[in-house]
């Protein structure tokens, strides 16, 4: 099969939520079979998160009082102030991902890369278009069968998707921001198991973490490093204890 080619700019735009939908869909499909493409994508996902984390401390330096005072003086002297229009208030776009989220730093770097590798893991994902709540979110689940399973399937029960893949929710929990999240295993048809966490965001499931956890040679073992990465994520996101099945059922009911 002819694999479409993607430029660095396109992969970057995908990571930044700026790739047009048609190309993003094509890239979703290409990523399923092309680990090299996922590696190239990981560079752009990771560098965005890393840049933001690295320069975050600069925001916490105190602003010299004279600058703040200068703004106030200018405002006081400004004749247009009296006719202040409320529109000015909304001029700020919402600060995307403004809250301190689980920094990618707290994860072993391998896990950080696995965030992007999740895309290659064969989940059908749509690029994040901003508005997400976590700096490490990369994508929104778009496969209706997968979404339906996450919306309805109790933890511990598995179901086969039409494609021959299998999904089994492992646990449901609330993260530090009280967002409903589900950890689940996703067995691809080629034998690769993906361990993933997806959280609710504006009615969608956003993938927070995806780790390809067993090799396609059928060995079927889960490397300890995968679970370490998962545990690091759970710690970093301040995940609560798994909900009881009853509480889980109630929480899922509310999604409908």
């Amino acid at each position, binding site marked *: 099969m002819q694999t479409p080619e993607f430029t660095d700019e396109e992969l970057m735009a995908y990571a930044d939520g700026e790739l047009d939908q048609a190309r993003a869909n094509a890239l979703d499909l290409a990523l399923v079979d092309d680990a090299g493409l996922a590696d190239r994508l990981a560079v752009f996902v990771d560098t965005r998160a890393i840049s933001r984390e690295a320069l975050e401390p600069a925001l916490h*330096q105190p602003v010299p009082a004279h600058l703040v005072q200068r703004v106030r003086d200018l405002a006081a002297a400004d004749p247009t102030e009296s006719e202040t229009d409320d529109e000015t208030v909304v001029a700020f776009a919402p600060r995307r991902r403004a809250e301190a989220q689980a920094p990618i730093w707290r994860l072993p770097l391998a896990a950080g890369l696995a965030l992007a590798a999740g895309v290659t893991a064969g989940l059908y994902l749509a690029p994040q278009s901003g508005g997400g709540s976590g700096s490490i979110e990369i994508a929104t689940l778009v496969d209706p069968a997968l979404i339906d399973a996450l919306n309805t399937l109790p933890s511990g029960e598995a179901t086969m998707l039409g494609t021959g893949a299998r999904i089994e929710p492992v646990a449901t929990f609330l993260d530090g921001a009280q967002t409903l999240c589900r950890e689940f295993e996703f067995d691809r048809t080629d034998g690769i198991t993906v361990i993933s966490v997806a959280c609710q965001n504006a009615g969608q499931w956003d993938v927070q973490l995806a780790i390809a956890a067993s090799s396609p040679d059928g060995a079927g073992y889960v490397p300890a490093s995968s679970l370490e990465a998962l545990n690091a994520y759970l710690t970093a996101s301040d995940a609560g204890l798994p909900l009881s099945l009853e509480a889980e059922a109630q929480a899922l009911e509310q999604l409908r």
Partner: protein
Amino acid sequence: MSDPFADDIIAFLPNLRRFALSLCRSADIADDLVQITVERAFASRAQFDPDTRLDAWLLRILRNAWIDMTRRDKTRGTQINIDDVPEASVVDGSRVAETAIMLKAAQSAIATLPENQRDVILLICVEELSYKEAAEVLGTPIGTVMSRLARARIALAEKLGINREAARSSDSRGGI
């Protein structure tokens, strides 16, 4: 009494200082730049379109002020020589567990990027402007912004040892 325009500017002062520092690498000059920016913002307040982002507008004013400043005098002479910035050590990404080390390495790596690459990283990855908004701030075509940004991120990843090969070798599927 409260003027939302002023309140928004005050709330954004830390971001303006961060961008100014990235441009001029001197705290004193950065504060001068921020002050010039807020003065120009009030002077041209009527030209601000409330349907656009105030933060992008302020960043553009600041960058233009920086260009004016570097044209007008020799302020650039007081910049830190790029050679004085500690070179980001290339670290083995898969073994980095220490947050602070990685943070430092990333800060140094960003500081050693060429100015036009640093600008786009700051505006897009850090200030989270869209490509279009960043292109307007920089007065540069969007295609140029994208190619610079891609180059900057590939360079950054290489400095930090998270290049493509590293990404592949740490792939947890192993054995491939």
